């Protein structure tokens, strides 16, 4: 039985759809939303900015808050609550490292940075990597 679901999210539309899909199709499952901050970029600005903060946990939480708020609002529409986890660094790695603690992963087909080709080439297609390497079943939502 699917009782624990990991939904990795950013602020893209497919991520929102993934959460909606998980909430609708698994009404009794525990849904945890994961958001990764400090993703590698051309100048590594976001990563360095986080590293320079005094309290990494607080700073990462603060940066992830908008995504979690949106997720909570969506969950509230379904009369549900979601757990939240924040990760730092490489998105696919973060998801794969945690996937073992869940029964399934539901994620959007592409993130908000999809249009930046550099992100696709250099950070990688997160959904594809997770799909290929995850040890648990993965659902990709468009």
């Amino acid at each position: 039985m699917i009782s624990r679901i990991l939904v990795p999210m950013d602020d893209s539309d497919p991520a929102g759809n993934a959460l909606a899909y998980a909430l609708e199709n698994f009404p009794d499952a525990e849904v945890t939303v994961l958001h990764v901050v400090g993703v590698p970029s051309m100048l590594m600005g976001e990563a360095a900015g986080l590293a320079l903060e005094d309290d990494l946990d607080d700073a990462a939480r603060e940066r992830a808050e908008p995504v979690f708020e949106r997720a909570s609002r969506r969950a509230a529409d379904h009369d549900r609550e979601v757990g939240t986890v924040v990760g730092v660094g490489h998105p696919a790695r973060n998801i794969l490292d945690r996937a073992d603690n869940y029964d399934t992963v539901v994620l959007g087909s592409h993130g908000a940075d999809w249009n930046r080709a550099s992100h696709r080439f250099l950070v990688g297609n997160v959904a594809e990597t997770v799909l290929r390497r995850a040890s648990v079943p993965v659902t990709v939502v468009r």
Partner: protein
Amino acid sequence: MVEYLLALGVVAAVFVGFNIGGSSTGITWGPSVGAGIVRKSTAAGVMTVFVFLGGWTVGRNVMTTLSEGIITMELSLSAGVAVLFFIGLGILVANIFGVPVPTSMTTVGAIAGLGLATDTLNYRTIAEIISWWVVTPVLGFWIGVTVGRYVYPVIDRRVQIETSRGPLLVLDREGRLPRPALGPNTTGRELVTTVVVLTIGCYMAFSAGASNVPNAAAPLVSGGNLGTDVGILVATGAIGLGGFTIARRTMTSVGGELSEIPLLAALFVMVTASTITTLLSWIGIPISLVMGTVMTIVGLGWGRATRPITVRGAVTRDTADHEIAPGAITADTAPERAAAPIGEPEPQPVLDARELFNPRAVIKYVSMWVIGPTMSTALAYVFFRLVPGAT
């Protein structure tokens, strides 16, 4: 015919300069524009002046390397125009795919390709340039690490960067002669901040000029098709044009990314990158501002992420959440906490800043510094082989 070709070359040079202006103005002024210290048009204006100064002085050394050092012959007009098109192509690819391809590298690559095709490549010079390209990122990284680990935390505690609303300075008309006075909300500290930020920005603009003006000008200057001074003026004009137009966007995009770093840290990065770039340009090595910048940022972040935990920090953490489990006595109880019972949400793990600088992710970006110049060398080689008349 020659006039048309020269006109085409100048158009290509302006295209190259225009794009360089966009990217380098973004890196140079993004942080201060983001912090609201400088307006975009002021930034572009100051940029143009200091790019000119950099190109006119230190830039001449790089110009000499590009036009006489890498290959033993002079670039003909048609070869110069072709080289400019390869530089432009590199920029186009970088813009379309959003990957960091330093212009100086594309330029050297294209000229080296020409040298290979005509058997006029000066291997000594090219080896020297490539060794500096290897040394520079390592140097930037270690300076960043040292600053991030030991210098930045100390300075950060003592220095506060302030900005207030309203004009920085106003004219005090109370006295007999109007004289400038601090604006309504300006503090003395803010005035100092602004002056420091402006000065460092000018320094970086100078280094951008020293390293980048030759990229746009050298291919035409080499064969004497354009006088050196005229070349510098054309390149500066084009960079300035880019600064006033597309830099409005790059100051937000590139600058937006730099704005994620505290302004104080950004200033450290700017000083380090500018110094590396200016010194290398001084000895005639073509180098891009972006290389020093990126590696200093990575070093700064990594140095801070891997900083040793201070005694005070370790003690507070210990009493706060009993994370440290020394010895075998407590080891038995540890697994219970590690595995959360089924049905309970995953506890938020303590984040590790080192994960921010996963070497593989950084290497992917840096690999563009190998792929970029290699591609431009190969393309130029093939082109000049197939079209021998162009040399």
